[in-house]
């Protein structure tokens, strides 16, 4: 079959291209806002669902920080609000504390920073920036969101189960997660957790296959791979990571489901619960950890890479300079992707992993510092002597770089198995991963939202609120996580309910209270963003210019409020890379502009 057919048959609107802007399909509320197949609407669905989850996840962290910061205080009003399972005698119960920690982790990593981040921006940016009318399969794209929605519903419902949501940590290590009698949270809560995660894996796969196929097959004329904006490269690699590793997690979960419900012992051996000997024999809990981290380590990069890509783009646009080392950026993204797949066991140095095998994992892990450093230096050199515009998006992008450096450096400590013996499962670790992948990815997400909001809604966000949001969040993030390094170095373990009874950790009571106070302030500040976001959808300043940031990429060649199909007429052709800023005394040259006869080469 011919290649023309290859490109155009899948998208039904390509057929009626010419009248696409004259008369739309009859779109009902349901097809436009609910079961939409328009990638832009799906991305907004992902974004708003992700924001709701971020709110829930953040609230959970505020609750457990209350326990950690104020272990002696009583909150009777919380008991009235949440009920006896969560708060008893004015104090958050130990069971609830573990449920809070677990759900906070699961929700933020999977639902917010995976679905909310790459779900939003892959859907939104891939077709717009590569010059496609929609995803390769809009229908699968829609399914991807609705599987995520179903996963969300199941996870949310687990919060209301009598025995509580799952409470064995977001890693769900067996035997705790496999045995209902081991903990109340391992009963119904864990069943719901597994169902939810299985649905989530399906959603990610449907999305990921679509992203990869779209980037490869649907690029417009002239958009060779080396002309792709770095956002697309990053989202492309993110999708590949997901396709290769989520199935492994899925298998691991299936074995766990069998262990829970069908009397198998894949992960179980030599167990006593409450003095009873269990019959399970011959399994290995380490096997689960291997299967889990085979996904969960790349997951960290699934969270990071989209943020990296968007930050690269935003830094370049707002420095009015080409990105420094485009090919090196792509290469380091590729290197990070490859390395991400082979370092999973560095999370398992102290679980009984073979030490020799561990040393190989140390080597691979430390290698990641090389591409990461390349990226950091390229971001910094992009900023160097740039004509910087401090837009809110730019502020968050710069904040991302700062957080990535601070959090990344401690990764080198933790990657060494010898140091990890001391630091494993301490607050040092919490500080490390929250800075480098948690807050940093959040900053990437905020940067993306602030930057592409005009394209999403045709309006601008309020800048004053945005700057307050940025500074409080930025300073707050450091105030929260920086002190945790000291706690961790002193050996303070994570996931403990109450440190005040430990002689060694009593000294941190004040510090814990300080951290908790900042958490509350930062959490409250996020409402500024939420207000700004929802208010501006309806009342924000209208965008009058199709290209408000003076950017080169294709999404800014669409109308201010693009319809389904993105471009009213022909899809534009691409003639150059995405980073011709400040070239030949011109501030920017869009990708659609043909290369002039006497234009200089770069």
């Amino acid at each position, binding site marked *: 079959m011919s290649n023309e057919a290859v490109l155009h048959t899948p998208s039904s609107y390509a057929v009626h291209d010419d009248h696409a802007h004259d008369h739309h399909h009859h779109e009902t509320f349901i097809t436009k806002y609910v079961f939409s197949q328009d990638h832009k609407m799906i991305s907004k669905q992902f974004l708003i669902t992700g924001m709701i989850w971020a709110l829930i996840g953040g609230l959970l962290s505020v609750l457990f920080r209350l326990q950690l910061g104020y272990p002696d205080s009583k909150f009777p009003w919380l008991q009235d609000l949440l009920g006896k399972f969560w708060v008893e005698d004015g104090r958050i119960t130990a069971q609830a504390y573990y449920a809070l920690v677990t759900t906070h982790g699961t929700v933020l990593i999977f639902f917010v920073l995976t679905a909310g981040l790459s779900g939003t921006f892959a859907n939104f940016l891939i077709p717009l920036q590569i010059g496609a009318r929609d995803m390769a399969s809009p229908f699968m794209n829609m399914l991807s969101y609705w599987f995520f929605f179903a996963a969300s519903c199941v996870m949310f419902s687990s919060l209301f189960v009598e025995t509580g949501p799952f409470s064995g940590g977001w890693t769900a290590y067996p035997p705790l997660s496999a045995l209902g009698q081991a903990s109340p949270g391992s009963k119904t809560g864990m069943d719901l957790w597994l169902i939810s995660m299985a649905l989530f894996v399906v959603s990610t796969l449907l999305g990921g296959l679509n992203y990869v196929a779209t980037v490869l097959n*649907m690029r417009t004329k002239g958009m060779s791979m080396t002309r792709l904006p770095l956002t697309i490269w990053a989202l492309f690699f993110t999708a590949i990571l997901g396709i290769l590793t989520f199935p492994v997690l899925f298998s691991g979960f299936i074995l766990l489901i069998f262990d829970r419900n*069908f009397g198998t012992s894949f992960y179980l051996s030599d167990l006593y619960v409450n003095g009873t000997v269990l019959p399970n024999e011959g399994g290995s809990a380490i096997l689960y950890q291997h299967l889990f981290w085979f996904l969960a380590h790349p997951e960290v990069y699934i969270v990071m890479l989209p943020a990296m890509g968007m930050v690269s783009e935003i830094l370049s646009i707002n420095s009015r300079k080409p990105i420094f080392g485009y090919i090196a950026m792509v290469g380091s993204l590729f290197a990070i992707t490859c390395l991400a797949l082979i370092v999973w066991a560095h999370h398992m140095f102290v679980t009984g992993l073979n030490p020799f095998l561990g040393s190989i994992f140390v080597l691979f892990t430390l290698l990641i510092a090389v591409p990461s450093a390349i990226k950091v230096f390229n971001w910094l050199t992009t900023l160097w002597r740039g004509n910087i515009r401090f837009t809110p998006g730019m502020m968050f992008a710069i904040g991302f770089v700062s957080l990535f450096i601070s959090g990344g450096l401690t990764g080198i400590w933790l990657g060494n198995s010898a140091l990890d013996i001391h630091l494993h499962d301490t607050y040092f670790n919490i500080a490390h991963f929250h800075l480098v992948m948690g807050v940093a990815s959040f900053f990437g997400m905020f940067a993306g939202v602030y930057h592409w909001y005009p394209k999403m809604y045709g309006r601008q966000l309020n800048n004053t609120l945005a700057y307050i949001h940025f500074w409080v969040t930025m300073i707050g993030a450091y105030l929260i996580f920086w002190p945790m390094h000291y706690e961790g170095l002193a050996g303070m373990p994570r996931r403990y309910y109450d440190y005040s009874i430990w002689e060694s950790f009593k000294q941190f009571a004040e510090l814990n209270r300080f951290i908790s106070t900042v958490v509350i302030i930062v959490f409250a500040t996020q409402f500024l963003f939420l207000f700004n976001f929802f208010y501006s959808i309806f009342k924000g300043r209208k965008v009058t210019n199709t290209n408000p940031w003076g950017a080169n990429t294709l999404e800014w060649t669409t109308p201010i409020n693009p319809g389904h199909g993105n471009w009213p007429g022909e899809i534009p052709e691409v003639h150059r890379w995405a980073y011709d800023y400040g070239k030949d005394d011109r501030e920017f040259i869009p990708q659609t502009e043909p290369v002039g006869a006497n234009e200089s080469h770069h």
Partner: protein
Amino acid sequence: MSTPTTAAVPTKWWSGGRSPFNVEYGKLMMWYFLMSDAFTFGAFLIAYGTIRFSSTSWPNPNEVFQSYPGMSEGTSAPLVFVSIMTFILIISSVTMVLAVRAGQEMKKNKVVLNLILTIIGGLAFLSCQAWEWTHLHHEGAWWGSNPFLNEDGTQSSTNFTNFFFTITGFHGFHVFSGVIINIIMLIMTLNNVFEKRGHYLMIEKAGLYWHFVDLVWVFVFTCFYLI
């Protein structure tokens, strides 16, 4: 394209405006889906290997899988029945290839014939598996119960049967869904859907899936029955 391509001018696969692989998106997605599914099965088989490597001994498959329907008591015929199953699946793969080819040649009747043969092959395989599962179940094997001893005569853990039923079950589920897909393809072919569309690309994708099921069996067969 504006200019006719001649043999001398290399095709610019990657410059956009076309598929760099000269395949439509559906086939590409099917390939990448199969790749990810390979990791699902890979993870299962590697988990099985890991547990086997961490066990001191393991049951000998030749002592476990040694029956076929209608076999007289007291005799043993290791590998015979499973070889039949393997051949059934290989042959059904061949008929699927023929169906795909007939589709490319737009020969509807041949497509129908070969799809029917493939479906029969798939059902035959599933029946064999059902018989084998029933037989093993009667011997006392199930999830969480393993009547077989290790090769060295020591007590075996239940993971031998746990993995066997989980992985062959997961594979069987794939065969089952493959049969369903093929039945849908058959109905669509009979309704002239592909004739009207002008191409049988859907059959190619269904074929990829079916061959993948065969491919997985090659690995399952080797890992469980042979070594």
